[in-house]
């Protein structure tokens, strides 16, 4: 019995006394002598982590013998005299406060691998998907790859990363979003803190052409498998979207095909062609807006379009 008591005590001692390595991804930012929080060392770790994520570094200050830091809406105070560390109002004895506990209280996602605590290199802040475009805002570096698997776009972590307070190892799936059939990733465009994954339809030909009155354009539910044609009264013209340099060429092929089809309609039906990005026309997808003097023209133009799409 006494043996087990001392053995357990030894193990606990080992855990606390043994140093740990703290990494951001594969990069070591600190090797601690013990697995207990140390004020100066903790400050360096937080500063390096902030630098890596390109967020504000901790702000430090002193009140008498009390030192404090403010970081990412958290406050940590330390009194060398009492040996107490206070994180967001909860005090602990510094000799008993492990780095893991500190990370948990500061809401920093981490993974424990052997004697290492691994922090993420990239943190996804938000994700949105609309009209074949997946937008990801992130902190740090963009360590993700997107691909379409079946009806879903899947985002995989290329390094250690985090999303919704969870940490993901390299190769692990971070999230997936249903996009429907026949999509593929055309391109991923990265900006600082923001990435745009552009999807395109593998094949748009032989798809249904759907006519939508302009009065219903704002609320229309456009099926992924259709080519929307919006129409309203006007001076006999067809409008298409242009491309944008924001997509770094990923929308060129759709624009070229859209323009080619529009030019054929213009030629055949003696229309004008206007290039203008109207909000209801989906991005990076074939679509048209017809402004016609006479409602009877609509059926003729749709018939021509269907022929062209065969």
């Amino acid at each position, binding site marked *: 019995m006494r043996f087990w008591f001392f053995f357990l005590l030894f193990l606990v001692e080992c855990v606390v006394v043994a140093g740990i390595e703290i990494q951001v991804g594969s990069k070591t930012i600190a090797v601690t002598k013990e697995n207990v929080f140390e004020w100066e060392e903790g400050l360096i770790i937080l500063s390096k982590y902030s630098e890596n994520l390109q967020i504000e570094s901790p702000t430090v200050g002193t009140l008498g013998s009390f030192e404090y830091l403010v970081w990412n809406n958290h406050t940590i105070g330390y009194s060398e005299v009492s040996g107490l560390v206070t994180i967001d109002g909860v005090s602990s004895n510094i000799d008993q406060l492990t780095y893991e506990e500190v990370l948990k209280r500061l809401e920093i996602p981490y993974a424990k691998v052997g004697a290492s605590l691994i922090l993420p290199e990239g943190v996804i802040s938000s994700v949105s998907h609309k009209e074949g475009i997946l937008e990801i805002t992130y902190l740090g570096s963009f360590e993700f790859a997107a691909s379409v698997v079946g009806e879903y776009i899947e985002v995989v972590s290329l390094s250690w990363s985090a999303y919704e307070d969870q940490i993901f190892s390299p190769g692990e799936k971070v999230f997936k979003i249903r996009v429907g059939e026949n999509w593929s990733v055309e391109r991923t465009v990265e900006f600082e803190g923001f990435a745009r994954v552009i999807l395109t339809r593998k094949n748009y030909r032989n798809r249904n052409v759907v006519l939508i009155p302009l009065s219903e354009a704002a609320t229309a539910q456009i099926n992924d498998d259709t080519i929307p044609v919006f129409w309203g009264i006007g001076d006999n*013209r067809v409008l298409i979207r*242009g491309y*944008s340099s924001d*997509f770094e060429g990923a929308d060129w092929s759709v624009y070229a095909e859209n323009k080619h089809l529009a030019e054929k309609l213009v030629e055949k039906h003696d229309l004008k062609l*206007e290039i*203008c990005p109207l*909000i209801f026309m989906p*991005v990076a997808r074939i679509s048209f807006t017809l402004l016609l003097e006479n409602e009877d023209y609509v059926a003729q133009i749709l018939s021509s379009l269907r022929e062209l799409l065969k």
Partner: protein
Amino acid sequence: MRKIAVFIVLCITIFSFGRQLTVFYLNDELYPVSVTYECENEDVVVFLFEKMSNPPEGLTTFVPVDVLKAYFIVEKSLVIDLCKSQLAVLDFQMERYFVHQVLITLFTNFSGIDSVYFLVDGRKRDVLANYVDIRYGFPRQIWTEWPVRGKE
């Protein structure tokens, strides 16, 4: 990056003295008509918007008076901040032609600008007034020519 922006701003300021500028208006058929002005004003963008909103006799414009709030340049992009209350008067056709008129005028006069972005009241918005999508940049390649083609 900042140096390039400063350089472009300097260029705009320097070249603004005694520079000939081309402003596009519309005729009765809504086709573009260019008019050349000698710019004495030191702020070319402000000058262009002032001229665009005051067409010569016989020509028309869809650029309202005092629609420009501010502008700035980021690398090779020109960001134009517009006044929402002035845009409220634009209907579907006017809104489209406002965009065409402004873009062709800006791209014609600033050869170093590759794209134009619009803000409304200092904020990034989805639409200019009601219809034109301004979430993404407008590229020079499309608006160096008038983007309406076909029968006169």
